[in-house]
C-alpha cells in the first residue's frame, strides 16, 4: 500500500491557495457589518479609541447569522430516553422533570445550542485592520480636490507612447516586430516557404535527371524548367539577403516621461478649546472626537498633515501628544486660534497647493467681545480657502436665550453664506460616532 506524508503547513492547502477561513471570515464580516458597526458604536462610548492594539472585541446579535434547520421541539411527543450512569433508580421510579429555562427538558438532551455565550449574542474579536476598515467605511474628507503642487519636487513617471531611440532594456518587442513584419512585406521579402517549394521541385527534377548526361538533358522541357528554377531561387536568395530580419528603423522603445504629479494633499487643523469653562467631561468628549478624527485621517489618507492647536485666551500650536495630554487652562478667546491658523496657512499651507480642513471643538463659551472678531476672521479669511469646516459643540445643548455663550448659534449664521461649514452638537459619548459619520459621510459629487 502506498502511504504518503505531505506537509501542508506552509501554504495551507496546495489545491486551495489563500486560506479558506480567511475568505469565509470576510464573508462573515460582510454579512454582519451592520451589527458590528452598532457594536463598535456602543463600545466607542465606553472606552477610548486607539489606533493601535491587537484586536477589538465585538458582540453582535445573532439575528441574521442563525442557520435555521427543521428540528424537533423537545417538549412534544412521547419518547424513551436511554441514559448511562444509573446508581439507584429501580423500575417504576418517577423522576422530576427539570423545570425552568423553558428551553427544553433538562438541557441534558444534547441541546442544539453548543455555541457558548449568550443566547442571542455572538461575540468575537476583530483584527485591528478589520476594525478600522469598518469604522471608517464610507467616510471621507469632503470636497478633496487635486491641486498641483509646484513647490514640492514630486514627479510621477508615466508611459507616454514610443520612441525610435532608447535604451535596449526599454525596447518594446511587440511593436518592433510588428514594424519589422510590415517592412518585410513592403520590401517583398520572399517567403521562405516559397523558396522551399522551389527547392523541392528542384530536388524532384534532380531525381528525374538521375544518371542522365548533359546531352540528354539539353533541349528537354524539364531542363528548361530546371534552369528557370535555379535562376529564380538565386534571385530570391539575393533579395532575401538584402532585406534584413530586423532593421534599426523597426525598433521602438517604450517612452517614459516625468510629470509633476498632481497630488491631493491636505492639511487638517485640529482646534480645541481648553479653557476653564471646559469641564473635564467636555474635554473628554472633545478629545474622543479628535482621537477618532486623528485615527481616521492617519488610517485613510497618506498625504494628510495635521496641525494641532490648543487655545484658551491664547492659542498654541502643539504636538499631537501635547494636544491630547496637556492640561493647562484659562479664559477663552476663540479668535486667537484662528489668527494663529491664518498665520500658519500663510506660512506653510498655500490654499493653491493644499486642501484645507478645519475641525474645531468647544463648549461654545467665548469672551463676549471676541465673537465679532471671530466671525469676521472665519468669514473672510478662513472659510473662503477651506474645503470643509466642521464645528462641534460639546456639553449640554444651550438654547437661544444664552446667546453670548453659544458659538453654535453664531456659526449657524455663517451657514447662510458658506456651504462648506457644518455644525454639530455632542452631548454624550454615544453621540460621537454618529456625529462623526454625519460629518464625514461620502457625499454625492456635485
Amino acid at each position: 500500500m502506498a502511504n504518503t506524508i505531505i506537509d501542508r503547513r506552509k501554504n495551507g492547502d496546495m489545491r486551495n491557495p489563500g486560506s479558506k477561513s480567511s475568505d469565509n471570515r470576510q464573508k462573515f464580516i460582510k454579512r454582519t457589518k451592520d451589527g458590528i458597526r452598532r457594536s463598535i458604536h456602543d463600545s466607542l462610548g465606553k472606552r477610548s479609541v486607539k489606533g493601535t492594539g491587537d484586536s477589538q472585541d465585538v458582540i453582535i446579535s445573532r439575528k441574521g447569522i442563525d442557520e435555521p434547520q427543521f428540528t424537533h421541539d423537545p417538549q412534544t411527543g412521547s419518547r424513551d430516553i436511554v441514559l448511562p450512569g444509573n446508581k439507584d433508580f429501580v423500575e417504576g421510579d418517577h423522576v422530576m422533570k427539570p423545570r425552568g429555562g423553558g428551553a427544553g427538558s433538562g438541557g441534558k438532551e444534547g441541546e442544539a445550542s453548543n455555541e457558548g455565550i449568550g443566547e442571542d449574542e455572538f461575540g468575537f474579536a476583530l483584527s485591528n485592520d478589520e476594525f478600522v476598515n469598518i469604522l471608517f467605511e464610507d467616510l471621507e474628507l469632503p470636497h478633496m480636490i487635486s491641486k498641483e503642487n509646484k513647490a514640492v519636487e514630486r514627479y510621477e513617471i508615466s508611459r507616454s507612447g514610443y520612441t525610435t531611440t532608447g535604451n535596449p532594456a526599454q525596447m518594446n518587442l511587440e511593436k518592433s516586430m510588428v514594424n519589422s513584419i510590415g517592412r518585410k512585406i513592403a520590401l517583398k521579402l520572399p517567403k521562405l516557404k516559397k523558396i522551399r517549394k522551389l527547392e523541392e521541385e528542384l530536388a524532384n527534377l534532380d531525381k528525374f535527371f538521375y544518371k542522365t548526361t548533359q546531352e540528354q538533358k539539353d533541349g528537354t522541357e524539364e531542363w528548361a524548367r530546371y534552369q528557370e528554377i535555379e535562376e529564380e531561387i538565386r534571385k530570391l536568395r539575393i533579395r532575401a539577403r538584402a532585406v534584413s530580419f530586423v532593421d534599426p528603423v523597426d525598433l521602438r522603445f517604450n517612452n517614459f516621461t516625468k510629470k509633476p504629479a498632481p497630488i491631493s494633499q491636505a492639511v487638517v487643523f485640529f482646534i480645541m478649546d481648553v479653557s476653564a469653562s471646559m469641564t473635564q467631561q467636555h474635554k473628554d468628549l472633545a478629545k474622543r472626537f479628535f482621537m477618532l478624527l486623528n485615527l481616521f485621517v492617519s488610517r485613510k489618507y497618506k498625504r494628510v498633515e495635521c496641525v494641532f492647536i490648543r487655545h484658551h485666551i491664547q492659542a498654541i500650536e502643539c504636538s499631537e501628544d501635547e494636544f491630547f495630554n496637556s492640561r493647562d487652562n484659562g479664559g477663552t478667546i476663540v479668535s486667537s486660534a484662528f489668527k494663529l491658523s491664518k498665520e500658519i496657512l500663510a506660512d506653510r499651507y498655500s490654499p493653491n497647493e493644499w486642501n484645507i480642513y478645519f475641525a474645531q471643538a468647544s463648549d461654545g463659551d467665548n469672551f463676549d467681545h471676541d465673537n465679532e472678531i471671530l466671525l469676521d476672521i472665519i468669514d473672510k479669511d478662513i472659510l473662503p480657502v477651506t474645503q470643509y469646516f466642521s464645528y462641534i459643540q460639546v456639553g449640554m445643548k444651550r438654547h437661544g436665550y444664552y446667546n453670548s455663550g453659544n458659538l453654535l448659534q453664531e456659526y449657524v449664521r455663517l451657514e447662510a453664506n458658506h456651504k462648506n461649514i457644518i455644525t454639530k452638537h455632542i452631548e454624550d459619548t454615544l453621540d460621537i460616532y454618529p456625529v462623526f459619520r454625519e460629518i464625514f459621510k461620502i457625499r454625492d459629487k456635485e
Partner: protein
Amino acid sequence: MKKELIYTGHSWDYDKLYRVMDACEEIAVNDMGLDCFPNQLEIITFEQMLDAYSSVGMPLMYNHWSFGKSFIQNKKNYNIGAMGLAYELVINSNPCINYLMEENSMTTQSLVIAHAAFGHNHFFKNNYLFQQWTSPDAIVDYLLFAKRYIKECEELYGSDVVEETLDACHAIQYQSINKYKRPNKLNAKDEIEKQRARSKYLQSQVNDLWRTVPTAKKEDENQLEKGWPSEPEENLLYFLEKYSPILTPWQREICRIVRRIAQYFYPQYQTKVMNEGFASFTHHYIFNKLYDEGRVDDGAMIEFFRLHSAVLYQPPFSSPNYNGFNPYALGFAILKDIQRVCTEPDEEDKQWFPHLADTDWRIAIKDIAANYRDESAILQFLGPKVIRDQGLFNLHDEFYYDNYIVTSIHDERGYKKIRKHLSASYETAAMIPDIQVTRADVKGSRDLTLLHESYKGKRLDKKTAQQVLFHVQRLWGYKVKLYTMHDETLLDVFECKQFSNAKVGMTINDPW
C-alpha cells in the same frame, strides 16, 4: 521475539511517522486482516485543523459565511480552552486523507494513525452504507468542481445572490437526502461537462411544466389536475432543483451541489457510533500489540492510555458534562464486549450470542463494521454486560406527564428494552424530521405543500420551522405550506406569515 522500538521521545519526525505507519499497517493488515485505502497523511497547523473542522471537515469546501462563523466560534473556544481540538480528522476519500496536527506529540500522532488511517479507513472502505452512498474516488474532485462553480457564480451574478441561494439550500439540506434510492456516483469530470447541457435541459423541463400558454391537452394533464407530484418527494432540494418555477439554471446547479454534498454525509451520521467504535477498537488493539511486541516503550504506553481514556470518557447522566452518549465510548464498549464474547464467553453470552461464542473475533468485528449501522448494530450487539457496566436505564416521557418514569434498568427484564430504545434513538427519523413534498398546485395558485410525518408525535420547533419555510419559499417563489401529521391527526400547520415576493436573486430566465 523482542523487536526494536519504533520510536522514543515526545517529538515527531518523518522517519518516525513512516515507521509507525509501517508497524501499524503490519498489524492492521496481517493480524486484524483490515482492508484499507492507501493513506495520505497531511501535516497541518492547528489553524488549518480548525479551518477544515469549520468547513464540515472537508479539505476544500466552497466559501460561505457560515463556515467563517463556525471558524470564529471554534477558534474562540479553542483559545479560551473551552474546546479541545479533535486530534484527528479523516476524509472518506481514495487515497484516504488523514490530518495530523503539528502540535501533537509522537504518541498522539501514532494514536491518530492507528485510529484514523487504519480504523476509519477500513470502515469507510468496507461498510455497506459508505460503499453504497459515497464515491471516495471522486469526492475531492467533486468538491473542487463545486468550489470553482460557486466562485464563478459569485463573479457572474454577485456574491449576495449566491449567498442567499446557499443560505436557503443549507436550511433544507438534511431534508434533501435520498434515503432509499441510491444516488449516481460522483464524477467531477462528467459533472463539468454535463453541467452545461443539464442547465439547459432542466430549464426546458421547467418551462414545459409551467407553460401558461394553453396547449393541446395531453394525457398527463389529467395527472396534473389530480394532484402533482403523484408520488411524494423526500428530497426537497431535488424537487426544487427540478421543478421550481423561479430558479435560474445556476441556482438549480447550486441546489444540486448542496444536496449532493449532504448526501455524501448521510452515511456518516448513521454510523457515528460504530465508525468511532471501530476506529477506537483498532487503535486500542494495535497499540497493545505494539507494546506486547516491545515496539513502543512504557512512557508511550502511559501517554496512550491517558489519551485513550480521555477520548473514551463517558460522563454519567447526572454529570454537568453529560452531553449524550459518547459515540467513541459506546461503540468501543460494544465491540470490546463482542471480542470478549468470542474469545471467553460465559453462560450468559452463550445464551445471548450463541452464534458468536467461541468464534474468531476478527471475523465478528469486521462483520459488524461492514454490515451494520448504529441502529442495527446496537439492536443486535449491545450485550447485557455493557448495559450493566454503563448502568444504562430508560426513562419514558410523555409531554403531558409531570415526571419521567423509569421503565427499565440494567436487569434481566430491562436489557432487551433498553437495547431496543437505545437503538431507536439512532434511527434517522428520530434525529432528523422527515419532510416531503406532497403537492404543488401547478395549474392554479402555484402553492407548494410539504408534509412532516411526525415521529412519535414529535412536533417541529416553531421558530426554526418558520424560518426554514421562509427559505423554501424563496426557492419556490410562491406560497409554501407545511403540515405536521401524526398518524391521521393534523398537529400543526405552518405558513409564512408574510409572503415576500423577494425571490432568490434576479430571475434572468424567467419562464413567464
